[in-house]
């Protein structure tokens, strides 16, 4: 056994030696002493550690004179004297560590030293660790398997050899090489004070955080696997400063919206680029994101990031700044989320990991309605079925008194408040996820294969989402110089009856939210009659009976997705390697939605079909050269080319009227059309970067990239952009008090250019319009194309300070940034009188400025009990600087009924809610139109920001023995939400605010339009119309969207597997997990402030989506 390789072994050896020393502490009579005894004496006298291969000291003795300890002042001299003539030599590692090696013959000494470097804690191979032969310039860095190989240079041949091994994030180690035949196994301890961290940066390059000129945050994969979200992006909520992640109210399999440091583009995709193991993946929603105001089939079909299985994730790195992302080009201007998947590792046998989570979720009831006056109109409760249907959504009836009345089911019921309609309508949702992963490998090849199954049942009982994932990762070393890596992921995702959002048709949520307050929603079940036709429950056919939606509407979709990557790395010469990667992310999507025969609003049914083949293909070639000059200056240069191809082949197959009723086939439609769309985008790029560091003190990075975009004008389709970043480690340069571990400052500047997100925006084209008669043609789109379309640019300045104190117990990271987008490619809404509804223009200018803070601390760190805190806070102030010349504002979206808009307005924040107010005079009195007895509505005014500027998250971790308890609290502040639910609840008499006037009429007072005093009484018979008309004053429904939520709690127990001798379990834990547990603070009474149902840019509307849910469950993790 080779003992000199790990500091663990040192300790062991020391203990052994001491035992030996006690037994053999006598001097031989012949004036000689055993060599081993002599060495022990040296160790004792000088209090040093001496390592050697077991056995080499045996049967050797020295002259006593050689070990006259009193004569030596220095352990080196003592050892030299002692070992003289023993065919042994020693080497000094440091003042306290020595190693004894054999002086073998040349044959014994190989020319090549091989080994593998591991992290001591997790036994995972360390990639990119540097291994130098001490005293020489010979060195190497470890490959993807943690392996290295060094050729011993001639000048040190025959001498004792010591390797110095270093890897960022780990304590450096010096290792004496005593045996050249066996490959070394070197284990590095993680640096205890976490003075330096290694993170994955652009193109998968691992770098020390202290070398970075920008802010990055890494989140370990384990944080996503216990209290999990189906969509991994949702799990980022509250975890990273400056990352605003929102899960949508669209049920299982829904999308996420992640915005880093504010929205950077008016119309473009503002979400970050998702990169898996260095290569981009597609994050599109098939057929596009749900919109804020569409009738029918407005459904969230799920985004691309939702396909990633949390169990496959090793870590997620969030690159926030432009500099961080500059190497990825335009799509990274909104930041990059780098996902590193788990890899196999060399081990004996097969490692098996099993992770299972079962959670249940329940709808949260946010209905804060009035329960004083029940169903009916004009103060009268319904006494016939017809009246009950006519007033099915109206709570303008009599005072609730428990008497009999007739409901929409035609039966007599007591006239009592029904407060549990949310509980009664929604089912308990479940999520069951199982992942099993196998990993293993040898020196040459390592692999990991995971197979996962996710089965979610929504809170709408027929909603289901299933996802099966297989992920295979293989790394192989072909020769000493060539390594290959392959990744293949196959997903089969199936969604059933995803919930429609937005307007009322087919949106089941309208029923439990809007049904009159004395109706038990279950009376409306099953929603259809014997013939299968919808049973009416209210006077508006468009507000579909929710049970009819559940039972008769049909939607299913299937996504087959394949993500494949292959790479080859060739170390051409020392320090210079070439890497080629090809990746392709491809999905094939089929969606069918049936609005059935017998619907009241569309009695003969409707068919919506979508077939979409989307692929994102990237080919990347990089060359990398590293060197160190005079030990102090490190230089690393990288150059590369990339070609990106995106393609979407889509077929929209829509139709109306099923010729044979209740038979749902595209071929059974009286009117149908199939419309193909074929989008192609290509971006070619060349890029390079140079990193220079000086003595671990000063780091500089420069990058440059040139992109050519197919979507831009041929005259203007190229842009070169650059970035510079620097980091200065102050604590290295000057002597700071001991409490300071590290203090560094960083700054960077970056420019990123981008092309148009959509193709075909250069020239006007004409398309045929489906016709059953003569051929028809029109312009392909109502957007005015732009022949001069050029790249937009996004420029970021960023500066920050990082501080770590008290051996890592306290950390602070502060960043301030300013990001400005200029020449943004706007798909600007223009007056339709121009002949077009939008114009593609290169004019937008948008600024985002902000600060981010991350405070980490370990107030208690005992072996049995520890407490970790991590608090992040980010404030982003966005400002629209410029729009189309002469235009101050444009509309992004409108709500159902056009009662509210989201606009971009010069001088305001990104995405403001716009609507009307009641006109008031200078004294604040409401101005009434005396002819109509209604307040006069103002023109459109700004009512608030749709995007929260302030976000924060607080994580706390408690470890008590084998238990771990963690809490995540997060909050968002400063935005407004316009609530469609409240508009309707007001119109329908459900809001408490509609109670006024129920008995004797509502008295209005103010001034008339001439300024004279005005007063009038709205009679009880006019109340419904009055409250119905309040929808004309948007301000009434705009509320502060700030909230603080207890987002997540995990209590986990590490099962002591040592006691489970029967099965070979390495580790096991069981956890109780909960998400969205409590809302600690909110200002919206009737709805959850996080109720968006689109991941598009129009944020700021609540529109009767699924209620938010509370999730509880158990998680079991076992490693064999």
């Amino acid at each position, binding site marked *: 056994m080779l003992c000199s390789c790990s500091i663990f072994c040192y300790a062991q050896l020391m203990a052994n030696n001491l035992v030996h020393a006690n037994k053999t502490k006598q001097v031989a009579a012949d004036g000689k002493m055993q060599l081993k005894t002599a060495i022990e004496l040296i160790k004792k006298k000088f209090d040093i550690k001496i390592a050697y291969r077991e056995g080499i000291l045996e049967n050797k003795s020295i002259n006593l004179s050689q070990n006259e300890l009193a004569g030596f002042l220095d352990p080196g001299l003592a050892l030299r004297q002692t070992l003289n003539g023993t065919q042994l030599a020693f080497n000094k590692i440091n003042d306290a560590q020595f190693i004894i090696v054999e002086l073998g013959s040349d044959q014994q000494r190989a020319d090549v030293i091989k080994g593998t470097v591991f992290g001591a804690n997790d036994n995972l191979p360390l990639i990119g660790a540097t291994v130098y032969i001490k005293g020489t310039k010979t060195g190497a860095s470890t490959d993807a398997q943690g392996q290295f190989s060094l050729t011993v240079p001639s000048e040190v041949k025959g001498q004792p050899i010591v390797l110095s091994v270093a890897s960022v994030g780990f304590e450096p180690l010096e290792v004496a090489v005593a045996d050249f035949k066996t490959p070394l196994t070197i284990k590095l301890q993680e640096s205890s004070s976490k003075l330096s961290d290694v993170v994955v940066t652009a193109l998968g390059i691992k770098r020390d955080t202290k070398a970075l000129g920008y802010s990055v945050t890494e989140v370990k994969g384990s944080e996503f696997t216990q209290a999990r979200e189906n969509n991994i992006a949702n799990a980022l909520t509250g975890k990273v400063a400056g990352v605003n992640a929102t899960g949508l109210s669209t049920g299982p399999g829904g999308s996420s919206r992640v915005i880093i440091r504010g929205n950077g583009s008016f119309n473009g995709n503002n979400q970050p680029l998702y990169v898996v193991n260095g290569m981009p993946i597609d994050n599109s929603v098939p057929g596009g994101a749900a919109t804020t105001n569409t009738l029918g089939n407005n459904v969230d079909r799920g985004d691309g990031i939702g396909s990633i299985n949390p169990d496959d994730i090793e870590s997620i790195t969030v690159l926030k700044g432009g500099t961080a992302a500059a190497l990825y080009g335009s799509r990274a201007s909104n930041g990059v989320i780098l996902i590193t998947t788990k890899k196999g590792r060399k081990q004996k046998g097969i490692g098996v990991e099993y992770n299972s989570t079962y959670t249940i979720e329940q709808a949260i009831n946010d209905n804060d309605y009035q329960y004083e006056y029940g169903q009916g109109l004009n103060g009268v409760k319904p006494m016939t079925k017809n009246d009950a249907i006519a007033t099915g959504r109206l709570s303008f009836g009599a005072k609730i008194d428990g008497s009999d009345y007739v409901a929409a089911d035609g039966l007599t019921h007591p006239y009592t408040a029904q407060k549990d309609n949310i509980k009664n309508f929604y089912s308990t949702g479940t999520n069951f996820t199982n992942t099993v992963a196998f990993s293993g490998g040898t020196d040459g090849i390592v692999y990991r294969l995971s197979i996962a199954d996710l089965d979610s049942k929504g809170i709408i009982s027929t909603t289901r989402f299933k996802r099966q994932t297989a992920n295979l990762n293989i790394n192989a070393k072909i020769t000493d110089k060539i390594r290959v890596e392959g990744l293949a992921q196959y997903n089969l995702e199936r969604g059933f009856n995803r919930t429609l959002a937005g307007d009322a048709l087919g949106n089941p949520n309208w029923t439990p939210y809007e049904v009159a307050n004395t109706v038990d929603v279950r009376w409306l079940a099953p929603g259809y009659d014997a013939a299968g036709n919808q049973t009416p429950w209210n*006077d*508006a056919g468009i507000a579909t009976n929710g049970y009819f939606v559940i039972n008769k509407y049909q939607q299913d979709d299937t996504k087959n997705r394949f993500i494949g990557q292959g790479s080859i790395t060739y170390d051409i010469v020392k320090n210079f390697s070439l890497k080629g990667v090809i990746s392709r992310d491809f999905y094939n999507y089929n969606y069918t939605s049936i609005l059935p025969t017998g619907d009241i609003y569309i009695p003969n049914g409707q068919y919506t079909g979508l077939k979409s083949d989307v692929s994102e293909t990237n080919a990347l070639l990089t060359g990398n050269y590293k060197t160190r000059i005079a030990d102090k200056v490190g230089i690393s240069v990288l150059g590369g080319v990339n070609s990106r191809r995106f393609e979407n082949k889509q077929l929209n197959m829509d139709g109306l009227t099923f010729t044979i009723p209740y038979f749902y086939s595209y071929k059974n439609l009286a009117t149908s059309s199939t419309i193909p769309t074929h989008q192609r985008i290509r971006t070619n790029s060349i890029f390079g970067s140079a990193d220079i560091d000086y003595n671990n003190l000063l780091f500089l990075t420069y990058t440059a990239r040139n992109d*050519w975009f197919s979507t831009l004008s041929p005259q203007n389709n190229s842009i070169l952009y650059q970035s510079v970043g620097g980091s200065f480690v102050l604590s290295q340069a000057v002597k700071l008090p001991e409490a300071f571990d590290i203090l560094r400052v960083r700054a960077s500047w970056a420019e990123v250019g981008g092309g148009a997100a959509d193709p075909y925006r250069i020239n006007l084209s004409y398309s045929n319009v489906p016709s059953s008669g003569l051929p028809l043609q029109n312009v392909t789109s109502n957007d005015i194309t732009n022949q001069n379309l050029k790249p937009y640019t996004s420029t970021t300045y960023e500066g920050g300070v990082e501080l770590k104190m008290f051996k890592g117990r306290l950390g602070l990271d502060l960043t301030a940034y300013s990001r400005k987008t200029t020449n943004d490619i706007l798909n600007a809404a223009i007056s339709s009188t121009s002949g077009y509804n939008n114009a593609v223009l290169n004019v937008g200018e948008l600024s985002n400025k902000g600060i981010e803070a991350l405070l980490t601390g370990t107030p208690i760190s005992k072996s049995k009990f520890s407490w970790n805190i991590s608090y992040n806070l980010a404030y982003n102030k966005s400002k629209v600087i410029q729009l189309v010349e002469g235009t101050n504002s444009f509309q992004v979206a409108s709500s159902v009924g056009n009662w509210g808009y989201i606009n971009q307005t010069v001088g305001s924040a990104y995405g403001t809610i716009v609507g009307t107010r009641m006109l008031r005079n200078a004294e604040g009195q409401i101005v009434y139109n005396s002819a109509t007895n209604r307040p006069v509505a103002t023109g459109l005014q700004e009512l608030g920001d749709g995007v929260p500027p302030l976000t924060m998250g607080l994580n706390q971790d408690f470890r008590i023995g084998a238990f771990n308890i963690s809490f995540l609290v997060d909050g968002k502040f400063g935005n407004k939400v316009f609530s469609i639910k409240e508009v309707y609840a007001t119109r329908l008499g459900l809001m408490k605010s509609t109670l006024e006037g129920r008995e004797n009429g509502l008295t209005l007072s103010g001034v008339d339009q001439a300024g004279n005093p005005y007063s009038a009484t709205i009679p009880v018979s006019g109340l419904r119309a009055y409250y119905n008309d309040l929808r004309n004053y948007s301000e009434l429904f705009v509320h502060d969207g700030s909230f603080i939520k207890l987002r997540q709690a995990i209590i986990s127990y590490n099962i002591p597997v040592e006691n489970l001798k029967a099965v070979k379990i390495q580790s096991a834990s069981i956890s109780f997990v909960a998400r969205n547990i409590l809302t600690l603070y909110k200002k919206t009474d009737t709805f959850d402030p996080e109720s968006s149902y689109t991941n598009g840019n129009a944020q700021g509307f609540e529109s009767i989506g699924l209620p938010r849910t509370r999730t509880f469950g158990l998680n079991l993790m076992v490693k064999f």
Partner: protein
Amino acid sequence: CTKDFQEINTDPEASATVQPAFVFTKALYDGAKNNLNLLLGTMQYTTSFNDVAGFGSKYVSSQSQQSSGVFGAAYYQEINELALVINAVGQNPDQVNLLASARIWRAYCYSRITDLYGDIPYSEAVKGYTEANYKPAYDAQKNIYADMLKELDEAAKSFNPAKTNFGAADLIYAGNNDKWKKFAYSLMLRLGMRMTKVDPVLAETWVKKAIAGGVITDDADIAKINYLNAGQDINKNPIALKLYNDDYIKADGNSNTEGGKYQEPFITYLKNNKDPRLAILSVVYVNGAPDTSSAIQKGMPATLSAKPTNFVTYSEPNQKTVLLLSGAKLLFTTAESNFLLAEASLRGWYTGDASTLYEAGIKSAMKQWAIIAPGDGAISDLQINTYIKYHKLNAAGTFDQKMAQIYTEFWLAAFPDAQEAFASYRRTGYPALVPVVYVGNATGGKIFRRMLYPLTEQNLNKASYNAAVARQGADDFMTRIWWDKL
């Protein structure tokens, strides 16, 4: 590395060149379908117990924005399509007939918008692509009228029988130049007469010019578009399709999706006057079967705010005529010519006999249902003559009494083109409709004088919008447009 970018960035599913004939056909369909159907309620033909669908008849303030529909849809569809056609054929003298047809249709389309809203973008409109004008100014209606009349005049004169025409792509006349000419002069007659209140002298000039040019007086010359019963929606009669889809698709008299029925005044008038049209336009469902018996026909009051228990007993449009998806849509009828000529005669601008013209108007108005719905729409000469016998123009009556007779008949003749009825109602005051007074109405219980501009104009074209409002008056239902000035 960019050599194939241009090819990559070319939509393989689209054409780079415009086909003027195909776009013209689309413009004809779009122009003919851009109707403000809520005016069917305002003109008291139909109503609903429901606020949203009943807006036109109840003037419910919360639904005010519905009234901007025609404005909102016109420009990016028919008006821009016509600009594409005119730009494509305009410079070519061989295509003068194509240009003339497009100009006449454009005048028709613009007149339909300006008559609803007053001042609208006109001279600067639909130049977003060609001149990057994203914020067209609104023109005063007076100037729009002057230009539309000039356009009609020039276009009518420019036809050249030696040159090519749109042929089959012309849904109205299949390329018949002479009929287009009559259509142009008929529109000139319509627009000329619109100006009687505001500028009688100018009105007289244009009415006389139109009559001299030759207007549609023969049913064979009626401007109309024929439709199909099945297939794409664009190929179906737009008014029938809208009514059918919105309300009458179930055809059982009770499951009307938006609660629609005929309104009381319309059915009562037809019934009281023993109008033979009642039997072909209106049905009541008895035990689920349509019944056209006059005795049981009954219109629904517009004042209802909830579904009445006797909902099924109210009259609704006949599936075989009004709701016939393949029924023709009449754009300019001989009935209208005759009524306008009768008025011209009363004013002394035309030599024809007012009574004869009035009777010819009634007759062609009744005959036109056989054009819309051959077979089921037929009314016999005997029925027509009997009706006329009891509805002679009161020769001894005042001008105003005669106008009342003519334009009450026009109201019946125009159905279901409520926009034209609305225009002549505002100009002449007939028929003497009694406004519906409904809680929460936006007009103070009066009938609209104009429609509202889309809210988006306040947002996207603010300066132009403000200038128009400053000139014309508040963007309000009761503001009177230029030719409607008291």
